[in-house]
């Protein structure tokens, strides 16, 4: 037994990779569907959108790139599904250049499911430069900053955009973000400056930084990583890729806990042997 723990000290890292790969792949082939408990922050975002009057306009800021898709695209899809199921209207903006095609893919997928019409029920305004400056500019005029949409159509030709001037016309803001400019800047420049009710979905690696905003009430709801996306999918009763990925997520976490425990036992045994010698 002691020899086993000693050998663990010099195990090839590729063996660890192999175990991780097995733990990710097997749950997809043979799902065991562990329950997903819904947290308070996820429930907060759901309740806020659920409480909006029919026809309200939600702004979704999709500030992420393809590398954030596994965590953030399910959030975007789930928020669209929730909004469209409640007959809310959605306008999307992106301050990351890679964002508009990802948001548009989500738009098209969900709009087809709910029979929503572009320009009437939802609009993709595409990308604009400027980051925080652009956010502040939207407080003056959203059509001024986005004279054309993602398809280069003048926004005055879109019925939904005729109803929107600035943040005063936005009932709720959802920031789905993977970095800067992102949720932090939306809180600083828009929520605090224009008092827009706001929720967010962020990557897991950055989620701990945003819980203080949740506690202070600056964010009314927060989705943290794939787990947050899965919780939201459960709440809207439409499990998607995030919920399906949680089996693999849990399996890998258990594996890592096992490795941490084994590694520590191995380390302590080797230290004891050294002190005895």
């Amino acid at each position, binding site marked *: 037994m002691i020899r086993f723990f000693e050998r663990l000290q010099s195990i090839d890292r590729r063996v660890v990779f192999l175990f*991780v790969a097995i733990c990710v792949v097997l749950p997809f082939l043979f799902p065991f569907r562990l329950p997903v408990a819904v947290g308070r922050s996820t429930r907060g975002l759901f309740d806020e959108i659920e409480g909006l009057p029919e026809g309200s306009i939600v702004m979704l800021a999709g500030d992420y790139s393809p590398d954030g898709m596994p*965590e953030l695209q399910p959030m975007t899809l789930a928020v669209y599904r929730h909004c469209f199921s409640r007959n809310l209207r959605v306008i999307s903006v992106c301050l990351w250049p890679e964002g508009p095609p990802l948001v548009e893919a989500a738009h098209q997928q969900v709009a087809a499911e709910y029979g929503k019409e572009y320009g009437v029920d939802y609009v993709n305004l595409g990308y604009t430069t400027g980051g925080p400056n652009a956010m502040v500019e939207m407080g003056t005029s959203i059509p001024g900053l986005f004279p054309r949409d993602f398809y280069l159509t003048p926004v005055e030709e879109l019925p939904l955009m005729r109803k929107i001037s600035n943040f005063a016309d936005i009932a709720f803001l959802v920031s789905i973000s993977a970095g800067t400019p992102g949720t932090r800047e939306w809180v*600083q420049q828009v929520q605090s*400056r224009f008092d827009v009710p706001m929720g967010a979905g962020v*990557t897991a690696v950055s989620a701990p930084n945003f819980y203080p905003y949740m506690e*202070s009430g600056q964010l009314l709801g927060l989705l943290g*990583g794939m787990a947050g996306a899965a919780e939201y999918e459960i709440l809207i009763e439409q499990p998607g890729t995030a919920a399906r990925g949680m089996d693999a997520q849990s399996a890998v976490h258990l594996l890592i806990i096992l490795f941490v425990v084994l590694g520590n036992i191995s380390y302590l045994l080797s230290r004891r042997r050294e002190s005895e010698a």
Partner: protein
Amino acid sequence: MNEVSLWTGFWPFTPERFAIWVGAILTLCIYSFLYRDNPFYKFAEHLLVGVSAGYWALIYWNANIVGQLLVPVLRGGVLLPLVPGVLGLLMFTRFFPRFAWISRYAIAFYVGGYAGLAIPSYMQARVLAQVHAAMAPTVSITAALLLIGLICSLLYFFFSREHKGVLGGASRIGIWFLMVGFGASFGYTVMARVSLLIGRMQFLFRDWLGLIR
């Protein structure tokens, strides 16, 4: 499991299928690095950097230069965008040591403008609102833990007195709170990295091979 073979996942050979195959092969090239560095990995890495640079250059050219300078000035007759345009051009004086000092005007304008934009909102959102929330009187176990954790963690960073006695005890409690915080961050980081792997595996096994739904 779907009864779909590799071949049926390949046929009919539409542009979408071609894109999926390219993505799958490049994904495998990247993951080959886990075994050891190799030419396939290097090829995929260089391709990613090149495509990203091209994509960003095009997007920024269209959004910044065309959208915010050329179109408003040449088509709209608006002259104000010429000011940031000229300031942007001044940055190129850095290539000529004799005139490099001129670029400081552009930098000064940018730093001053951004500071004016960011500092008040930063103070409001990240300092005042947070302090206000921390001071709000609430009676609960969570609030008590938050208060103890906050004070003890701050005391850990108080270096004007030796950490012994009451201060030493409080700072040790602060370390525990900090460790719990770091542990939570580490857990979230693991989840983020595993999520990326899960995303790629979903792509390979669902979109490429069609083995899962």
